[in-house]
């Protein structure tokens, strides 16, 4: 389905490490390959500490890769001053906490106009700000110009942030948990707003979330991240209803919003990115290994020793699809 479209972003063998303590560096992003196509909404899902926010920030140029690279419309990101200024016009980011993202001592007008000034955008500033606020659902926009963040609600603050991002007509919107700090009844409105605006403008969206229901609500495609690596990706409908990787299956089974699966509660916490297990990085928690299924299939050693390189990143899934393929060929 993406065959005819060009990737807006190409991420290749990306590694981002943070200097660590005794155990060496934290390998937050640890070999990610991912394409994000023009005009699609991609949801990156995973538990906290899996590296999803680091990957999002790397796409914004906020982290320099330790190795590997990111291309934007085919051109590698350039980290010099001019390169970053250009990137920060075409790529905008919105964060989880709209209160922290706004300057408490700046009026809402200033908050939205700041990007225009930094980017030296020509034209009628007041008109652009008014239009952006209005499109973000803050109407009449003039009544918000002189107000301060503390005078409006959390949902309205996130609307101001969205207005500030959209006023620059970006090609890419990176949204890190855009509604998780908001009340449930307010979330849907903010998501609808985002969905409407990006569709209208044909913007590509990279949304980071721990909430699989949100992905079902807004995403065309979903990528699942575990300990610094994408372990499965695919069209949202397929991935969320027929997950293949055992981690995706477990994650979906514990979400109360999916009723048809038996809960598969994994033991332990998300492991530490300073100590990524060898072999398949999921093997110490993997239900396929624990249940003895891997041993029955004769791949237990492989799971412990060999890092799966293809998606879905699971030796058992790989084996099953080879068998299917063989059976199919045999039938013919």
């Amino acid at each position, binding site marked *: 389905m993406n065959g005819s479209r060009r990737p807006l972003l190409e991420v290749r063998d990306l590694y981002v490490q943070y200097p660590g303590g005794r155990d060496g560096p934290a390998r937050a992003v640890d070999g990610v390959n991912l394409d994000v196509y023009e005009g699609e909404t991609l949801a990156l899902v995973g538990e906290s500490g899996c590296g999803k926010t680091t990957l999002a920030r790397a796409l914004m140029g906020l982290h320099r890769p330790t190795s590997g690279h990111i291309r934007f419309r085919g051109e590698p990101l350039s980290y010099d001053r001019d390169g970053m200024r250009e990137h920060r016009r075409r790529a905008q980011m919105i964060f989880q906490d709209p209160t922290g993202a706004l300057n408490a001592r700046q009026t809402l007008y200033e908050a939205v106009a700041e990007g225009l000034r930094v980017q030296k955008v020509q034209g009628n500033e007041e008109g652009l700000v008014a239009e952006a606020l209005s499109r973000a659902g803050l109407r009449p926009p003039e009544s918000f110009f002189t107000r301060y963040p503390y005078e409006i609600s959390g949902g309205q603050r996130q609307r101001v942030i969205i207005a500030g991002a959209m006023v620059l007509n970006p090609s890419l919107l990176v949204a890190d948990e855009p509604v998780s700090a908001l009340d449930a009844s307010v979330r849907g409105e903010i998501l609808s707003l985002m969905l409407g605006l990006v569709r209208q403008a044909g913007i590509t969206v990279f949304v980071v979330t721990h909430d699989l229901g949100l992905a079902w609500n807004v995403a065309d495609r979903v990528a699942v991240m575990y300990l610094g690596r994408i372990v499965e990706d695919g069209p949202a409908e397929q991935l969320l209803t027929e997950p293949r990787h055992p981690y995706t299956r477990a994650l979906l089974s514990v979400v109360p919003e*999916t009723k*048809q699966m038996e809960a598969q509660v994994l033991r332990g916490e998300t492991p530490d990115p300073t100590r990524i297990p060898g072999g398949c990085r999921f093997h110490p928690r993997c239900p396929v290994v624990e249940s003895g299924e891997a041993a029955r299939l004769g791949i237990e050693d492989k799971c412990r020793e060999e890092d799966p390189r293809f998606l879905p990143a699971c030796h058992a899934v790989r084996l099953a699809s080879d068998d299917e393929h063989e059976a199919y060929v045999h039938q013919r």
Partner: protein
Amino acid sequence: MSLLEVRDLHVTYAAASSAPVPAVRGVDLTLDVGETLGIAGESGCGKSTMASALLRLLPKDTEVTGEVLLDGEDVFDMRPGRLRAVRWTELAIVFQGALHTLNPVRRVGDQIAEAIRLHSSGNGASPAKRVAELLELVGLPARRASAYPHQLSGGQRQRVLIALAIACEPRMLIADEPTTALDVMVQAQVLRLLADLQRDLGLAIIFITHDLSTLANICRRIAVMYAGRIVEEGPNDRVFAEAAHPYTRALAAAFPVIGDPRFRMNPSGLPGDPPDPRDVPSGCPFHPRCPEAIDICPRTQVELWPAGAGREAACVHVSGSPVAT
């Protein structure tokens, strides 16, 4: 007699720079032995204030009226010593934010042992043995007793808090957002633990959360709060599947069912924001955001009216409403 009975509870916070803030505005509740009740609502709806009021944990200048009967004994009439004992041996509470509740410079086992020494009747096993039992009961190895809180993960700390809460064998537990700061997998672990404890120890649990989706699996009855009052109550499966109150309906729709085409590419919410307790709308407080509001809503005092078998809802549209619609 019910284990817990709350009658017409009102809580009003004193405010330095404004008029007093009514956070809970008339709540009635009952809970029987071994029962589970979920209380759902958004920020500012009064759910946590209500939980704290049940155990008199609010600041001194807060005005609290109504009755909280624990086995028929009014909590508001208890002497301080009796109240302290009740908090450990009858009705314990687990808050969110496991980080700040434990003493950072003492081993977790010692903290649990101290509670047992001070508040248990003193019969039975030695505290050390009981600590080991409790830790294993909440799914931690007994040797973790010697750990300091910072050496534990968020999920493990929440387990320690649960062990602490059940250390003196209370019959009832209030869990206020016990899984909110946790990751989905750890959240599932803690929910499963609470469900096991409920079953094995016959604990009655009041589970308070903003996250409707976590309630469905562990609570038999559910109450939904809005603007300081309960607006709907009923059996959990019915409340979500066919909500009687438009607010419950909207809230349920905000938690999409994965795989259900109705939610696909269709996020659902409500216009406006939850009301500020300082400025609650007239009549039915939900009317400014309600998609089904009619002309009488802004001036009708809604109460919990019958809305089908074992159910009540505070909306003029329900079957038992005395107001013609």
